[in-house]
């Protein structure tokens, strides 16, 4: 658009100024507080770029719109990130303690609770499901589901998902302390030295893909790409590709992912009452995820002779490895000789699988109830 000199300055609205401040805040949080800088920094910068009046970066021929169309609207970028994540995950802690998979399931409770809460607040079912998935504590899954069901809400959902993932060390401890007694937090977990065979690690991603594909075909691309990345890692003959997926692919996609999402962070789309609800509901999702994991562990302990430290249940969310570290540190604070890291990591890895499956189930169930 031909705006002449200083045309943008004259054309700027107060909402665009607010959005630029939002962008600057995200950049500040990324640099100063180290809150998920790989995504919040590009999103913050993109938010500024998208809100310059008459910006050539967005619109029909804008580069950000182009990147959004080639990478987000067809779900290519989040899926490619899954290859990278799969190549980074070591499933052996989970294979050593498979019972902790159930904690991964329990700690998805926040997703489903938030879907109901959002529906009560007036969001339609697809929007409610997209908001609930913030509780997956898994950025790419949130982006994938939100883009399918509510592309207009992608900006605030991504900001909420990545911000709360960075805030896990602040969100989880008070909830855990509230729901557990000191006696429960002191439950000791013995360290069992056990190793997993190479064949099991290779068979695992293939079997999980087939199994998940049959149960929830809508999750096939999500879980399939995650497990494809993991198979590259574990097969032992593609080390170069595995390293490329973990480093170059992850870096390149992350580089454009944040700035592409920022295409949706224009003032008219972002500065609405709904954004505030989404940010609030995202926090609710994380709180109920943590509560779900802890309460499930406590319920399991009623039937078990050998009790599990219920704090480990909270590590069932997908935010890896922050959540496992938080639980380990909390355990050490109560008893400096109680090492929970191995168990918390297993639950955390279980949460990574569970969050993807939760995304797939939502993708299958919501269209059925929207008929």
């Amino acid at each position, binding site marked *: 658009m031909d705006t002449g000199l200083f045309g943008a300055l004259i054309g700027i609205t107060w909402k665009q100024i607010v959005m630029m401040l939002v962008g600057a805040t995200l950049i500040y949080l990324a640099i100063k507080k180290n809150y998920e800088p790989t995504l919040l920094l590009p999103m913050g910068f993109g938010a500024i770029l998208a809100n310059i009046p008459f910006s050539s970066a967005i619109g029909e021929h804008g580069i950000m719109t182009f990147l959004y169309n080639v990478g987000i609207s067809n779900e290519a970028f989040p899926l490619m990130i899954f290859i990278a994540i799969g190549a980074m995950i070591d499933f052996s802690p*989970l*294979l050593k303690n*498979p*019972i902790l*998979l*159930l904690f*991964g*399931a*329990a700690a*998805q*409770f926040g*997703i*489903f*609770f938030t*879907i*109901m809460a*959002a*529906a*009560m607040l007036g*969001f*339609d*079912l697809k929007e*409610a*499901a997209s908001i609930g998935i913030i509780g997956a504590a898994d950025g790419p899954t949130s982006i994938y589901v939100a883009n399918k069901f509510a592309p207009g809400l992608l900006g605030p959902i991504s900001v909420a998902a990545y911000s709360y993932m960075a805030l896990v060390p602040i969100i989880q401890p008070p909830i855990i302390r509230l729901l557990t007694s000191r006696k429960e937090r002191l439950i000791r977990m013995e360290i069992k030295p*056990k*190793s*997993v*065979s190479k*064949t*099991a690690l290779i*068979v*695992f991603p293939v*079997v*999980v893909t087939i*199994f*998940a594909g049959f*149960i*929830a075909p809508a999750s096939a691309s999500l879980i399939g790409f995650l497990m494809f990345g993991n198979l590259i890692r574990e097969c032992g003959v593609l080390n170069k590709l595995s390293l490329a997926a973990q480093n170059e692919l992850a870096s390149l996609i992350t580089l454009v992912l944040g700035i592409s999402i920022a295409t949706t962070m224009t003032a008219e789309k972002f500065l609405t009452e709904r954004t505030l609800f989404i940010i609030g509901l995202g926090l609710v999702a994380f709180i109920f995820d943590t509560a779900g994991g802890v309460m499930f562990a406590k319920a399991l302990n009623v039937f078990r002779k050998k009790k599990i430290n219920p704090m480990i249940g909270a590590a069932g969310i997908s935010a890896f490895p922050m959540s496992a570290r938080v639980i380990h540190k909390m355990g050490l604070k109560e008893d400096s000789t109680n090492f929970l890291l191995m168990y918390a990591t297993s639950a955390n890895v*279980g949460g990574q*699988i*569970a969050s993807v*499956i*939760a995304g797939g*189930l*939502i993708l299958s*169930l*919501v269209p059925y*109830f*929207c008929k």
Partner: protein
Amino acid sequence: MNSVFYSAFNVAAQGMTGIFIFMASLYALILLIDKLFPQKAEPKK
């Protein structure tokens, strides 16, 4: 309660049930994989 909430409740109930069934089945599957492909003990030197 409106019909959207009713649908959301159904999604939540079936989603939570589905995820537990999936993870419990996966647990059984891992036990099976562990049985079929056990880690062989290292030969003593």
